[in-house]
């Protein structure tokens, strides 16, 4: 895994149209982005489409990355997530020549090695940790799987209205916790 500093360098070079740096950037980040995208789409063919779209967007918009706002990897992940969720919500294209591979449902987030815990992540996890266990699970499931409220309600076996209220209360509490 490359360090944020390296990725920032690569991204800076990409803003200058450096194709070699872009290839390195891809090599350094593609497994992370693919992991994120695949978790949301659960199909390799769709995930590949999103990867293509995401990296072309990164290639084009690298100059828009603002290091004051986020880490380069978080910025790239956000781009890929947006596209992946759009794809997941849109009409799922029928599979072409190849069989779609449906990935096993693996819902929980992975674990993160302690040394990779950034301060921001620690703060966020502390705030999420203050929610009740049910709501923690709901939130992480929502984030990692990008399930719609209806899908989440079905998974967690609760009414959609209740889930919506619960989700929004969680978001509000996290917002206030992070502000404090």
């Amino acid at each position, binding site marked *: 895994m490359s360090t944020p500093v*390296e990725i920032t360098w690569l991204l800076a070079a990409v803003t*200058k149209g450096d194709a070699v740096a872009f290839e390195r950037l891809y090599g350094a980040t593609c497994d992370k982005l693919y992991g994120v995208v695949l978790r*949301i789409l659960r199909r390799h063919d769709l995930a590949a489409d999103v*990867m293509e779209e995401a990296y072309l967007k990164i290639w084009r918009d690298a*100059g828009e*990355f603002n290091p004051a706002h986020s880490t380069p990897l978080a910025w790239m992940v956000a781009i890929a997530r947006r596209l992946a969720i759009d794809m997941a919500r849109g009409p799922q294209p029928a599979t072409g020549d190849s069989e779609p591979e449906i990935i096993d449902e693996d819902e929980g987030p992975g674990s993160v090695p302690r040394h990779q815990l950034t301060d921001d992540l620690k703060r966020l996890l502390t705030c999420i940790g203050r929610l009740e266990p049910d709501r923690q699970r709901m939130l992480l499931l929502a984030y990692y799987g990008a399930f719609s409220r209806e899908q989440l309600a079905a998974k967690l076996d609760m009414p959609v209205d209740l889930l919506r209220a619960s989700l929004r209360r969680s978001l509000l509490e996290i917002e206030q916790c992070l502000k404090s």
Partner: protein
Amino acid sequence: MSELDYTDALAAEYVLGTLDLEERTRARTLLDADQAFAANVELWERRFGELHLMVEPVEPEAKIWARIKAKMSEVRHKTQFPEPDVAPPASAAPAAEPPSLDAIEAAISQATTTLTSETAAAAATEATPVPTSEGTPVPTSEGMPVPTSEEMQMSASEATPTPASEATPAPASEATSAPISDTTPAPTADATPAPTSAVEPESSTPVVPPPAADAVEAPSEARTPAVEPATAVLVVHRRMRRWRVFAILMTLVVAAVAALLAAWRFLPDRVPPMLHPVELMRQMGVALPAAPAPRRPAPPGSQFDE
């Protein structure tokens, strides 16, 4: 407890990914149209941004890269700008990993010590083998990797979304400062007579100014040969700022001289007597040949005979 208002909740849930198609379409429309909403989305993306660290990486198929590569040329590169001097080294810089930064720094200080002991010309070629022997993926063209890594760190350490504004003044400024550093006792050059002379043998090539700047700067580096990468970024950052101030001053000097020349040429009668060419030369002790008193040239647009 209060509630998230509608747009705030929409932004948060957009980022979280729980909106259905209809709401998400609405959110995307808002995202394009409403800056406040876009900022809100960005804020939530920042809040949840680091959660990706907990996602297990999955190696994608190799053909995905082939697909991306094939379409790269079709995508217009928004932020591309002409940068003749900086662009080629930029491709080399990313290879320099934080640890190898130390190697570069060490190479700089080593090159400086060599410079002081040996002749300048020899030192210029001497400096090259050092980085390569340490296994750093640094091109062999002398001095090039150093300015590049500075460029890169500069953009890395500074919060600039547009490196264009960052990188463009640098070469120009260094170009201005290089020739002057020979004649002017520049504050940074005081302790190092040797590096300044090292500038001269190369001063015909266009890429010289950056190495010159670094050669002059290097001695300050020698005191701290093994800085941590993070500190190194700060050091370089500070050095760049100093250079930038210096460059701005030099640009002002050049502008002032240019203005004076223009005034001589176009508005000779508006120039105060103090600044007349003849007066200036006399003040500087240049003996003028006893030539006929210089006639004031007629203004260029003048149609009249004198």
